[in-house]
């Protein structure tokens, strides 16, 4: 097990080296917030993939397939398809019209202060929810993977928190980018290698592999009897029979949050400001789609491999399916490598979240809301961003340690729901609808944010009555019967977000914003006047 720690320390040493290198090149706001807009297409593609593929994907989906077969794989699909929204609708106009944040696009023709204040609130909310989920994941991982090394959950959470703050404060966007690139390469290497080992187990025969999946005999832990199931048949998790009839609708609601939420995730959107122009942003989405798609297809081998080779009853916890498979097929050293990859995965994602939250606070809230767009001294914006990275880091460490024993599996879903219901509607309407007004944007952001949070609180994710012997990590936070039947609020909160934004715009017209629509359109579609790469 100690080899896992050595491999992880090697990753930490390499990334700190990158941070020192990046710190020397960090001169000015453009360098700190947008890596000098000097990242190339393939580099940004890898970084987007590294920013996006979280431990929930790597460990969570493998586990879901290992336990629920096909339904787990169906869950994989939406994560790639979501990038079509990013590619077709958001990436290029955002790069052409903005500077550092999502709010730049909105503030282009709307009244900057109210819009930026709301967008900043939504950005920081999404990032914090997502970050706390990731950090608790890191703590849980340590408990599972490094149980005999004496590293405690708290140490892991604090370690992850301190490292992400160091990357961001000293290395800015450049260091964050390279941490994400290295992580993407490590994750893909580990996944491809593990997939090949699974295929080798079946003598490189797909027929044998699928035979094993479709006739899987194992012990059902609930009834303690031997069963044979076809794991390629849908219905084990989302089927109407196992979910009181709500499963299929819940899955559609989740799909909506993925397909519309990804293009509203602040930490993904800021990545498109790091490239020289919209064309490169487009190329980078395509690179990201190749890598992300390949990864999610390979979850077939990780998940079904764990189901067939380990058998579900031998996997103690769903998050352990992939590491245990690595141990069974590749031995201690490969297990150590996969464990280190899981940590690298978490670090790269939280670094991306930290920089997007602190950029939004410094650029949107501090500079533009409080100081009307004129920072008092040059360099102040970067200084405020560094301080807010510290605050964001400390707050997330605190929340993660406080909530580590609670059932917080809903946090990632909530982040996607807010991104889809609050952020995406205002981004799309701002680019495509002339009548869109400040009041519409504020109402859309507010209703999208609030309805996602309220519906999650009323859902079976948080409300439910548990038996007395259910452990804390699985207990519902509110011991009452759920009021809203779906775990995922998207199907209701996304239309609400759009409706609020449209109704708000119709109620309060804004001639100034309408007059600037021509300018935004020309800029978004031709790149005229867009932010240029800083020369060095």
């Amino acid at each position: 097990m100690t080899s896992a720690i050595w491999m992880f320390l090697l990753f930490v040493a390499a990334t700190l080296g990158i941070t020192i290198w990046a710190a020397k090149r960090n001169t000015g706001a453009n360098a700190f917030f947008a890596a000098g807009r000097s990242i190339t297409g393939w580099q940004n593609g890898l970084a987007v993939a590294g920013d996006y593929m979280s431990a929930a994907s790597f460990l969570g989906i493998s586990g879901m397939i290992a336990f629920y077969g096909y339904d787990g794989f169906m869950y994989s699909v939406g994560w790639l398809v979501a990038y079509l929204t990013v590619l077709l609708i958001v990436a290029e106009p955002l790069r052409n019209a903005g500077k550092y944040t999502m709010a730049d696009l909105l503030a282009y023709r709307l009244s900057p202060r109210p819009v930026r204040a709301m967008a900043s609130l939504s950005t920081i909310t999404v990032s914090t929810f997502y970050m706390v989920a990731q950090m608790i994941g890191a703590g849980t991982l340590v408990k599972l993977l490094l149980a005999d090394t004496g590293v405690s959950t708290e140490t892991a959470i604090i370690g992850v928190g301190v490292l992400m703050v160091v990357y961001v404060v000293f290395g800015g966007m450049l260091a964050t980018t390279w941490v994400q690139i290295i992580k993407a390469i490590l994750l893909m290497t580990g996944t491809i290698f593990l997939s090949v080992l699974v295929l080798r187990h079946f003598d490189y025969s797909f027929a044998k592999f699928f035979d094993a999946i479709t006739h899987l005999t194992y012990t059902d832990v609930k009834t303690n009897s031997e069963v044979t199931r076809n794991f390629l048949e849908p219905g084990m998790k989302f089927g109407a029979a196992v979910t009181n009839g709500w499963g299929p609708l819940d899955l559609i609601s989740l799909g909506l949050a993925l397909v519309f939420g990804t293009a509203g995730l602040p930490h993904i959107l800021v990545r498109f400001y790091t490239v020289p122009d919209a064309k490169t942003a487009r190329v980078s989405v395509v690179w990201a789609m190749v890598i992300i798609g390949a990864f999610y297809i390979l979850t077939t081998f990780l998940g079904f491999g764990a189901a067939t080779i380990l058998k579900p009853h031998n996997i103690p916890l769903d998050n352990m399916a992939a590491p245990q498979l690595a141990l069974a097929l590749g031995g201690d050293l490969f297990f150590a490598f996969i464990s280190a990859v899981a940590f690298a995965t978490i670090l790269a994602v939280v670094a991306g979240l930290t920089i997007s939250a602190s950029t939004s606070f410094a650029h949107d809230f501090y500079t533009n809301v409080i100081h009307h767009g004129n920072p008092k001294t040059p360099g102040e914006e970067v200084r405020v961003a560094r301080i807010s990275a510290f605050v964001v880091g400390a707050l997330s460490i605190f929340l993660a340690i406080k909530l580590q024993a609670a059932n917080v599996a809903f946090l990632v879903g909530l982040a996607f729901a807010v991104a889809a219901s609050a952020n995406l509607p205002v981004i799309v309407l701002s680019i495509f609808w002339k009548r869109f007004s400040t009041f519409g944007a504020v109402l859309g952001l507010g209703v999208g944010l609030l309805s996602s949070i309220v519906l999650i609180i009323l859902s079976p994710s948080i409300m439910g009555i548990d038996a007395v012997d259910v452990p804390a990590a699985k207990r519902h936070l509110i011991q009452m019967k759920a009021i809203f039947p779906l775990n995922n609020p998207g199907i209701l909160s996304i239309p609400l977000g759009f409706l609020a934004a449209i109704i708000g715009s119709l109620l309060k017209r804004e001639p100034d914003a309408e007059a600037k629509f021509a300018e935004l359109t020309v800029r978004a579609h031709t790149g005229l006047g867009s932010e240029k790469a800083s020369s060095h």
Partner: protein
Amino acid sequence: MRRLSSLCAMSQEKNDSPASPPDWSGLAAKPAFQALLKRKSRFIVAASVFFIVYYFALPVLVGWFPDLMKKEIVGKVNIAYLFALSQFFMAWAVAFVYVKKAAQWDKAAEAVLEK
């Protein structure tokens, strides 16, 4: 391309001194730009409708027509898995077509700015 970037650089400088910004509404009113916008939005709307319908067909079919989806067609592999797998290739194909189209739009946008 060089002319485009020098044009952009010029407009960038002009942006800093608000005395003479680019003629945004003049550019927006150009027939060539309007034609580009029309072509672009027609494709984006069509492609988005296609991928959204294709994607949500998966949970709809799996949720309400499970028996159809359980039919095995390639060896032991059923329609459900093949349809889920096809989603990845669908996404890549749409992205490929978009990139081809966008290269044409880039040229058209350059032409709008040059004249």
